[in-house]
Structures are given as structure tokens and as C-alpha cells.
């Protein structure tokens, strides 16, 4: 029993870390532009593909200390490449709509998501591509559970990235500007902050983190495919809401919470209901949690309590 629980815990933390990284992108963009960036899930997918090609190109250098350096170089390159893609998308598809209705940028994001998915499907590959594992398949036995090196790496790397982000937004001036703009763009402008640069930076970091999440996910499951963004993106979005959308620590917390809820929910539901509800209800579980949280605490766990007086805008969109 302990082994089963620890196994579920490890699985939960692994997928939770990935959700958390993607959720950060959603939450930062929503915080500043009040935009649900549907294209973000495709950043995740594109990141996985970019890493695939970079790893394939440097396959000859694999192994040993050089291999480790190359691996990190691939990560950096993926982050930068997809980050720049994010900045470009913001400039082309979201910035012109900043003063239009709230619905317009969302639909533009949707269009961008369709474009990205189809470009990859048509010009890269329709079928799943096998992602090379960049760590040896070592595993450890912990109290009856099997923990792979890959899982440890994913969790450790994701946590390191989140700590780096937290340091950045709390300590550096630029990071504080990002937080200010994320909290309230109008007031930030009143204080003399030019919001365009922090916004572009948010669209660099968010998609970049999503891309790294895509790389980690691809290494965990061994494949990349053009359709992998949708469901994972949706779940990461739920995670961002759980934690409180607009709140950076909220996204981190929400990601891990959703990973735990999903894994334990799906794992324990059959046991608790004696097989009446099976684990295929995992997704229903996730969505039901979302609906319940939004009904009873729309702000999520770390968001500010949303009151009707607090709603500054009058038209919903």
C-alpha cells in the first residue's frame, strides 16, 4: 500500500511539475492582458518539436560530460526560440487588439493556435515522432515504488526554473516591473512604466517555460505529436485557475495540486467506489474540480477573493 501511494505521489509530482510550468505562462499573460492565451498550449507543442530537432541534430555529441552540456544548450536554445516566437505572436496578433473587446484577442489566440497546430502537422509531421531520451533509463526502488531518474530530473529541473522565476520577479527591477504590469497595467503606466517591454518579456518567458515543459513531457512519454498541446494545455489552464489565475505562485501551486488531484483521484476512485467509477473518469474529475472551485472560490487558492465590487470593467467583454 505504501509503495502504491508513493508511486502515485511521484507520478503526481512529475506531471504536476509540467502542468505548473505551462500554467505559469497562462497566468502571467492573463494577469497583464486579461487574455486567455489559447495559443499557449501550442507553445508547449512547438517546444517539444524544436527540442526534438535540436537533439536529433546534436545526436552525435550525446553521452558523457559534453552530452550534458549539449543537453543544456538544447534547453536554452528551445527556450529562446519559442520565447521569440511568443514575442512575435504578441506583436502581430494581440497588440493591435489591446483596445478592442475582450473577446477579440481570445479569438485571435485561437486562430494562432490553429495556425501553429496545422503548420506543424502539415510541414513537420502528421505522425508522432519518437523523442530520444536524454537521460539513461536508471530507476530507484523507494519503499516499493519505482522512481526513474527522468522523473527526478523533471521535478528538480521544473522546481529550479520556478525558483529562478520567483527570484527574477521578486528581486530584479525588471521582474518587479513585470509584477506591477501583471497586477494592474493602468496603474503601472501611471507610475511611468512603459508596459510594452514587460509585456513582451512576459510573452518571452511564458512561452519559453511552456516550451521547456514540452521538452520534459516529450522525454517522459517518448513522443512528440502535433496534437499534444490541447489536452495538456487545457489541464494546465485548469491548474492556473485552481491556484488563482494572475498569481505566479498560484500557478506553481495549482500545477502541483492538479497533478496530485488527477493522479490520486483517478487512482483512488476505482478503489473508493468499488469499481463503479473507473479511472477513465480522470478528465471528468479534473473538470468537475474546476467547476466546483470556480463556483465556490473563483479566485482559486492564492488569488484575491473576487468580489462584485472589485470588478472594474462593466461589460463582460
Amino acid at each position, binding site marked *: 500500500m505504501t509503495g502504491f501511494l508513493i508511486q502515485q505521489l511521484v507520478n503526481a509530482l512529475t506531471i504536476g511539475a509540467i502542468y505548473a510550468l505551462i500554467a505559469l505562462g497562462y497566468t502571467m499573460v*492573463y494577469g497583464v492582458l*486579461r487574455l*486567455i492565451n489559447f495559443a499557449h498550449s501550442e507553445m508547449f507543442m512547438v517546444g517539444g518539436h524544436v527540442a526534438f530537432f535540436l537533439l536529433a541534430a546534436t545526436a552525435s555529441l550525446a553521452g558523457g560530460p559534453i552530452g550534458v552540456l549539449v543537453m543544456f544548450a538544447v534547453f536554452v536554445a528551445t527556450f529562446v526560440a519559442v520565447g521569440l516566437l511568443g514575442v512575435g505572436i504578441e506583436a502581430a*496578433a494581440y497588440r*493591435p*487588439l489591446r483596445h*478592442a*473587446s*475582450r*473577446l*477579440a484577442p481570445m*479569438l*485571435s489566440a*485561437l*486562430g*494562432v*493556435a*490553429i*495556425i501553429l*497546430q*496545422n*503548420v506543424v502537422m*502539415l510541414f513537420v509531421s502528421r505522425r508522432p515522432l519518437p523523442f530520444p531520451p536524454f537521460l539513461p533509463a536508471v530507476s530507484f526502488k523507494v519503499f516499493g515504488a519505482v522512481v526513474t531518474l527522468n522523473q527526478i530530473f523533471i521535478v528538480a529541473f521544473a522546481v529550479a526554473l520556478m525558483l529562478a522565476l520567483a527570484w527574477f520577479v521578486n528581486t530584479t527591477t525588471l521582474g518587479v516591473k513585470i509584477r506591477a504590469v501583471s497586477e494592474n497595467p493602468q496603474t503601472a503606466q501611471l507610475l511611468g512604466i512603459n508596459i510594452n517591454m514587460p509585456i513582451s518579456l512576459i510573452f518571452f518567458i511564458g512561452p519559453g517555460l511552456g516550451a521547456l515543459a514540452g521538452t520534459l513531457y516529450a522525454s517522459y512519454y517518448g513522443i512528440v505529436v502535433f496534437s499534444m498541446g490541447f489536452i495538456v494545455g*487545457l489541464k494546465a489552464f*485548469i491548474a492556473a*485557475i485552481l491556484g488563482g*489565475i494572475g498569481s505566479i505562485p498560484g500557478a506553481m501551486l495549482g500545477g502541483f495540486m492538479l497533478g496530485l488531484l488527477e493522479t490520486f483521484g483517478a487512482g483512488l476512485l476505482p478503489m473508493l467506489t468499488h469499481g463503479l467509477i473507473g479511472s*477513465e*473518469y480522470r*478528465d*471528468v474529475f479534473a*473538470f*468537475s474540480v*474546476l*467547476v466546483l472551485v*470556480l*463556483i465556490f472560490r*473563483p479566485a482559486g487558492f492564492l488569488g484575491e477573493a*473576487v468580489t*462584485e465590487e472589485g*470588478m472594474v*470593467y*462593466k*461589460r*463582460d*467583454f
Partner: protein
Amino acid sequence: MAIVAAVVAALFHFVPGLPTYYVRVIDTVLIYLLLAIGLNMVVGYAGLLDLGFVAFYAIGAYSYAILASGQFGIHLPFGLILIIGGALAGVAGVLLGIPVLRLRGDYLAIVTLGFGEIVRLLMNNLVWMTNGPQGISRIDQPFLFGFALKTPRDFFLLLLPLVLVALMLAWRLECSILGLGWAAIREDQDAARGIGINTTLVKLLAFGLSATLGGFAGVIFAGFQRFVDPVSFGFWESLTIVLIIVIGGVGNLVGVVVGAAVLIIVPELLREYSEYRMLLYGCALVVMILVRPGGIVGRRYNPAWIIQKLGWR
């Protein structure tokens, strides 16, 4: 008046003569138009962003599939199921409306999205009732007043009057006191409450009425296609219907008609480039939103403008 009657008569006369493929496309346009008129009440009139509308479509379709096929051996008549399906969907709409009364803007959108997905997942997983991912096939052929609805032509003759009635009803509602209540909620919910509008009732009516229309469309769709499966009722469908309204022109019935026509016919025209179809669709969407964020048909050109142009009043 004469112009309108002439146009309608022309439609009735000429369209059934077209090749079956065209009639089928027009039928699809009409079904989506019915859905869009329903969603327009919630999104366009009342200003509540509902991203899970497909749930009511699914409820209507599955009601017909379950109650008129070999699934349970029940074979109720089409007309009866129209009423049952519409009522079930309407009740579901009100049930969705009750917990979301306090939510605004994006939170409402997300909850409705979640609700839509939950319904689809339930359809997928409640295998004993809905046959799960395999869907329900060999659904009964619908009979209405003794006439069999077999070919797309038959469905066109059923759908066109239905859609015209729905358009008229929607327009009358828009001009009614309920419609004014919706407009008040759309512009400023708090002020509306402040002047004494019962926002709860008005919102629930919006959800309920739109859901009923969605249910009707679903029942007809099931009779038309005679096969339902959960795949046709996903987030993508909800988005398509929202897009019809937004690209056509939000809150504007003329825009809704234009939007439905554009969003169904253009992908059909692009069928030749079937591989690149979705890519072009995405590009067209982004360009459209950037160029005309308000929709194709401007706010000015609403049914009142048309009525005025035709010299009806």
C-alpha cells in the same frame, strides 16, 4: 413585406431543386443558424460569454438517439422528442445558470467551458446509456405529420420555416421587455440590479431559452445524421458557434445569419485544399479579427434597419 415573401417563396421553390450536396450544405447552415440564434441570446443580448453551448446541442441529439433507436428499443415519434429534447436541454440550461449567477466575465466563460466538456465526457463514459465512444447509430428515421424526413430536401423544408420562426421569435424577444432586461445586464449588471431588474430571473431565462433552442437543433441534427457520437460535441463545436456570432456581428441577428453562412460555406469551398483547409481557416480567423474585430456586419445593420429599409413600418 412583399419583398420578404418573394424571397422566402423563391427559397422554397429553388433550393430543393439544387443538387443534393448543396442542399445538404444549406441544411447544415440552417442547423448552425438555429444554434447561433440560441447562443446569441446569451452572448449577444445578455452579454454572458458561454463557451459550453454544445452541451445543450448534445443533450438534444442524444435524447433523440436514445429515445428513437435500438439502444433501448424505445421508438418515440420525432415530434414528441423535439419537445422532450428541447425541454431537457432547457432544464439543463437553467441548472447551468443557477450556480454561475455570481460569476462574471472570464470565470463564467471557463465554467461554461468546463460544463460543456463534462457533458461530452459523460456522453463518452456512460456507456450503458450512450454507447460511449462508438456512438449510437441506426437511429430511427424521423416522421413528422406522416411525412418521412429522408433526404436533405425534406429536412430543408422542415428547417427553413423553423429557422424563420426562430429568427422572428428572437427579434421579438430582443425588442421585448425581456430583451431590454438583457441589454441592461449586458451593459452594466450592477446598474441593472440597481434599477430593479431581477437579474437572476433574466439571466436564467437567457440560459434556459437559448438551451432549448440548442436542444431543438440537436434533435433535428440527430434525425438528419442518424448517428451520434461524443466527438461531434466537443469544445470545437462550441467555439464554432461562438465564432459564427462574433464574426458575423455580436448581438445582431443579421450578423448571425451572415456569420453562419460564411462559417459553414467557406470551409466547404476550401474542401479542395482539404489538407490546408484548417490552416487557411486559422489565418482567415486571425486576419478577420484584426481587420474587423466587431464582426462583418456592423451594429447599425440590425433587423430594425432591414425592416426600415423594406418600408415595413
